[in-house]
């Protein structure tokens, strides 16, 4: 990583959306990177949230997207609003000629929107990064480097996330202001599965996609929704099988792992829960009677995201190009869609 230790001109950052993710994830990460970034404006549709979050970041509050985009002291826009606003705000930020845009996951909610973003990136030359923190976790990056070619290299891929409810971890990272009310989520199993895939599994679907030889050809064998919130989905792609499950429960002991099994080697990457500033992911690779544990740089994907963004703002190539990001989103939407379809039959039969 080629991050300059001291920058005389930190990049100005403007936030669109100042909910728990901005408060608990990005502001604490940026506080540790004060030599690289300076938060200049915090915009939220809710004026009270904007004021209180801006005040703690020493930035100016706003309730207007345009106001932030037109602020010439701002080089980087972080889109942290709810999903439906991501695509439009990313596009506007690119058109406003910012240096880089960081968009929280998901990148967009349709492939069409994602493709539009890619086109605007291409015409404006403004790079976009997606806040999929596992893809920027130093543990994951060290793992893929040690493992070598990923596509088609494992027959079984397993991803399991057993996590307590988010607020528990938000509170380790910050003191949340204006916490949004807990969503009264959809109750139909298929809708719950869609929310689970696009809200939680989305962190790992890019990792899974990296291991698939034919990610465009998936078949979902079973999809179930779990109580109180979670899912269990089994799908295959050209003979490779993926197990994807998550459960949010009162269990205090978080466990978030990504595993691959190949005939003569296997690996487990264990990620930290969301929000906390702990990291990196722990990586264990077993092969031929030898166990290798990788010790990656001591930070998590949130910090990794921002460090990478700094490099990209200074001309570095983005780790994941827009074509990759569109393909990741298309894959996530495909898994969500097919899992919903399978859930309709699986859960009815149950």
């Amino acid at each position, binding site marked *: 990583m080629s991050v300059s230790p001291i920058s005389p001109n930190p990049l100005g950052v403007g936030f669109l959306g100042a909910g728990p993710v901005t408060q608990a994830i990005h502001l604490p990460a940026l506080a540790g990177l004060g030599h690289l970034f300076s938060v200049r404006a915090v915009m939220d549709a809710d004026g009270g949230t904007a004021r209180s979050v801006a005040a703690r970041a020493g930035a100016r509050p706003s309730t207007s997207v345009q106001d932030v985009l037109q602020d010439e002291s701002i080089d980087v826009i972080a889109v942290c609003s709810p999903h439906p606003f991501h695509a439009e705000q990313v596009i506007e930020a690119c058109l406003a000629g910012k240096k880089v845009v960081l968009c929280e996951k998901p990148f967009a909610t349709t492939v069409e929107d994602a493709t539009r973003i890619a086109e605007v990136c291409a015409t404006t030359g403004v790079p976009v990064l997606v806040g999929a923190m596992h893809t920027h976790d130093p543990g994951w990056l060290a793992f893929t480097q040690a493992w070598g070619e990923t596509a088609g290299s494992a*027959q079984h891929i397993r991803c399991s996330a057993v996590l307590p409810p988010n607020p528990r971890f938000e509170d380790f990272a910050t003191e949340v202001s204006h916490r949004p009310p807990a969503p009264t989520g959809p109750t139909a199993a298929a809708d719950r599965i869609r929310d689970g895939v696009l809200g939680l599994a989305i962190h790992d679907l890019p990792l899974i996609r990296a291991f698939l030889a034919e990610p465009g050809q998936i078949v979902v064998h079973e999809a179930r929704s779990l109580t109180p919130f979670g899912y269990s989905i089994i799908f295959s792609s050209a003979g490779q099988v993926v197990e994807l499950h998550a459960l949010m429960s009162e*269990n205090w002991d978080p466990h978030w792992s990504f595993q691959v*099994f190949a*005939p003569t080697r*296997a690996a487990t990457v264990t990620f930290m829960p969301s929000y906390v500033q702990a990291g990196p992911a722990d990586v264990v690779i*077993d092969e031929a009677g030898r166990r290798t544990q990788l010790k990656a740089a001591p930070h998590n994907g949130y910090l990794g995201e921002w460090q990478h963004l700094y490099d990209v703002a200074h001309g570095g190539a983005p780790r994941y190009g827009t074509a990759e990001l569109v393909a990741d989103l298309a894959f996530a939407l495909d898994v969500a869609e097919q899992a919903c379809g399978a859930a309709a039959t699986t859960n009815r039969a149950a």
Partner: protein
Amino acid sequence: MGALAVGGELQALSRGDVPAVVASLPVSLRLAEPSDLVALEGGPGWPERVAAATARGVMVVHPTPAAPEAVPAHPGAPVVLNYRFADNPVMPTAARLFTDWPADAMIEAAAVVAQPAELDGVLLDQLATLRRLGSPAVELTRLTWSSAGYYLSAVTRTGVRLLLSAHVTTATSPQLRIRGLAPSVALELTLPDPGTAQPAVLVRTTDAGATKFPTLWESSHRAGWRRLVAAVDGTTPADDLTGLRTDLGLLAPLLPAS
């Protein structure tokens, strides 16, 4: 009662580490012919060989799937099915923890084995493990099956979701990991390969913390022989064949060969 004489098929004696186990139970057992207790290999034809056995007790080492109707309903002597994983001595403790497992929960059973040829046996072992935990599968659906392993989905009588998987790799030692996930409690049980007396790991987690249960440095092979001795001397009957027929009936239509 003096030490019971143990003998049996050569392959069973070696697969089941019988000489070492017998040496570790010198008051109860000794290797000798003619034998009181006989070890039979659990490969093809084992039910017929059990039916033909004339010993006072029969040990089936690593049983594999067979036709349910071939399994003797009333064998002449106690029969212990010595599974690699399901016979681990931690099972009674684990079963207590799984009692009344909430219906809105799930249980995963994920096995790691070295060879595709072990898949049929490990599936039977998984079903036996779930049965001994008090959560037997009642509906079993095959999701995927290949030389890389399998995924099967099932439920228990009370509606608990079961996900059974096996992963073929030589990267790590064989094991069976059972994980129960409920809204307010999680149980994780790691059953090691019986090649050594490595203990199982059993951890129960609630919102108050995690409890790790005492380690038992005994292989499933040794625990199985202790069960057979207890069955033969009448202390604790072995009803291993009860339930096995049901499990065999469940999986017969799912095995790739059938």
